[in-house]
């Protein structure tokens, strides 16, 4: 039993990280009908930025709770700025262009960021220090949880709930949902669509940045091409949950992590990845719109 619970925790931890990253994909798609393929590399970029802030400003001093929060906030702000810049340069000029052009632009932006990381920090593996967060562990009848894991689970849950309220209960949230339904109508109602899209990129990038920092702190090793793997998994999580649906992205991410851990734990570690994706394909065959995706009536 404790082994089962341990696998559950393992799966939920990595699933939360996927979910945090998946939110960025799903929000941008919901409003712009665009898959932001550069999002994964932006997440990788955030881990590098966080590491640099840490080593430049706090490397020598003991890491206090306040410093960790400063690192997180600074990183999130920088990445939000980069996200907005990305939208300005790579997506806005193509907003009325055929959708394929925007996808190609997104792939191009992903390569630019990835190679940018390689040029700035070099192609070698970078290593996060192991003492950013306390190394406390709790042992609850054989199930082990580390402080970092608890942080990931709690903070991602809090962020997701906050996002849910932001989208559904605030004025800006209402404007975002209106823009997602029909941009032109939203414009006629006096909504500044450019501003809404900017907000989407700010929020999505910030969540991705927090995910990226946690990936760095939890796994310690950074490679310049790691964004692609996390991006791909998060993108799949968003699709499973129903692209465009915010609760869907959360559920998709958690499911992906859980499937992977449980298949690895109980069927085969070597086939875990393959079987996870087989399972996901089956889900999509049964529900092409994803778990929470709605069937939208095509406008005729």
């Amino acid at each position, binding site marked *: 039993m404790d*082994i089962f619970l341990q*696998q559950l925790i393992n799966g939920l*931890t990595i699933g939360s990280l996927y979910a945090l990253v998946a939110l960025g994909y799903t929000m941008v798609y919901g409003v712009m009908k665009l898959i932001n393929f550069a999002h994964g590399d932006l997440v990788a970029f955030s881990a590098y930025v966080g590491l640099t802030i840490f080593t430049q400003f706090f490397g020598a001093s003991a890491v206090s709770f306040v410093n960790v929060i400063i690192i997180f906030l600074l990183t999130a702000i920088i990445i939000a700025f980069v996200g907005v810049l990305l939208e300005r340069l790579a997506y806005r000029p193509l907003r009325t262009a055929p959708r394929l052009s925007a996808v190609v632009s997104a792939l191009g932006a992903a390569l630019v960021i990835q190679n940018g990381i390689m040029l700035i920090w070099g192609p070698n593996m970078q290593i996060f220090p192991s003492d950013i967060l306390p190394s406390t562990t709790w042992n609850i009848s054989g199930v*082990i949880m580390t402080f970092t894991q608890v942080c990931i689970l709690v903070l991602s849950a809090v962020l997701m709930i906050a996002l849910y309220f932001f989208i559904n209960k605030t004025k800006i949230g209402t404007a975002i949902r209106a823009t997602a339904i029909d941009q032109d109508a939203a414009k006629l109602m006096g909504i500044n669509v450019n501003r809404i899209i900017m907000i989407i990129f700010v929020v999505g990038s910030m969540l991705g940045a927090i995910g990226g920092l946690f990936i760095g702190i939890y*796994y310690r*090793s950074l490679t310049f091409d790691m964004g692609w793997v996390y991006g791909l998994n998060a993108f799949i999580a968003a699709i499973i949950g129903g692209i465009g649906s915010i609760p869907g992205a959360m559920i998709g991410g958690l499911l992906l992590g859980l499937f992977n851990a449980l298949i690895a*734990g109980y069927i085969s570690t070597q086939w875990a990845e393959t079987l996870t994706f087989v399972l996901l394909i089956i889900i999509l065959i049964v529900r092409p719109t994803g778990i929470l995706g709605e069937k939208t009536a095509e406008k005729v």
Partner: protein
Amino acid sequence: MKLIKLASAFALSAAVATSVFAADTVKIGVQAPITGKYANEGQGIDNFVRLIVDEKNKEGGLLGKKIEVVTCDDEAKAQKAAVCAKKLANAGVFAVIGSYTSGATEAAQTTYYRNKILQTSDGTSDSLIKRKYWTFFRNSFPNSAQGEFTADYFVNQKKYKRIAILSDYSSYADGLANSVEDSVKKLGGNVAFRGKIKSGTQNFTAILTKIKALNPDVIYYSGYYTDGGLLRVQQQQLGIKADFVGGDSNDNPDFLKLAGDAAEGVYLVNVPTPDILPYEAAKKYLTAYEARFNMKPPSIWAVVNADGLRAVMEGVEKTNSFDTKKISEYIRNDMKDFPGITGPFNIREDGERVGASLMVYQIQEDGSYKVSFNK
């Protein structure tokens, strides 16, 4: 035939194009992962080769010719390695040092063989010498030797009852893990688990939790330090009380960095570390290396490759020619107890190195190594 002509024409034109003094220089190639996952190992090999070559050039070169080093980055990838092999062949090198990984070494072997270029590598896969190329010799021990040594340590020294063995999917690590597994079974030991992880995936908690349920005495990992360090961290996080033993490729400063506090108590199986090599040549070259690059060599692998290069040079001087066939025959048949940095060694007819002692180290709290078993 036509192809060979073309290739030699290429090689000629390349040689003519690169140097006006072609007659007074000879070229030695380095094929190593200068970038990518194992970059610090690759750079170590390249640095050491350049150190030795510069020293030789100061003495007047090889048979009066200046040596020029041509480095090609294979990123530890088989595809890139094949490209490197062609590049170096076209550059007109007569010998190649490298690569660091067995996979990249194997991918380049045939090209060097066809072009009659000598190749020496620290790759430990048993498969590296199965093709019986006269151009190739190994400057390290084969996996099977390490496998037997490790198994003996587990079963007879440590008396482990339940042994969990992990590798990645690379030919080197898989071969080493299989070798350990077979040897443990031969000695009557119990392999409770044998699994594989995908290198670079970072998250190994699922497989480790599975291992935890089996309650092993030891987790042995045969792959590289980039994953080994993370495995150790996650083993501790999951509260698995087993010893952690890493194969030779975990012996790298980055293992300590990745594992952090968790590195303490880890056992590593390897040939003697550079700084405890008791040989004359070792003191000289390691001091020179540190003076020039302001750091120690990343690991023993740079050092054994340097020995490979020194054996090649010895062959050139003793045969008084750059005829690679002659050099290869000299190294295999006539070279006796060459005074290597890593100890005296000979090369067998099949290109296997004879004369390498293995040890087990334990990582101490301050990150230093303590020899805990020496046979």
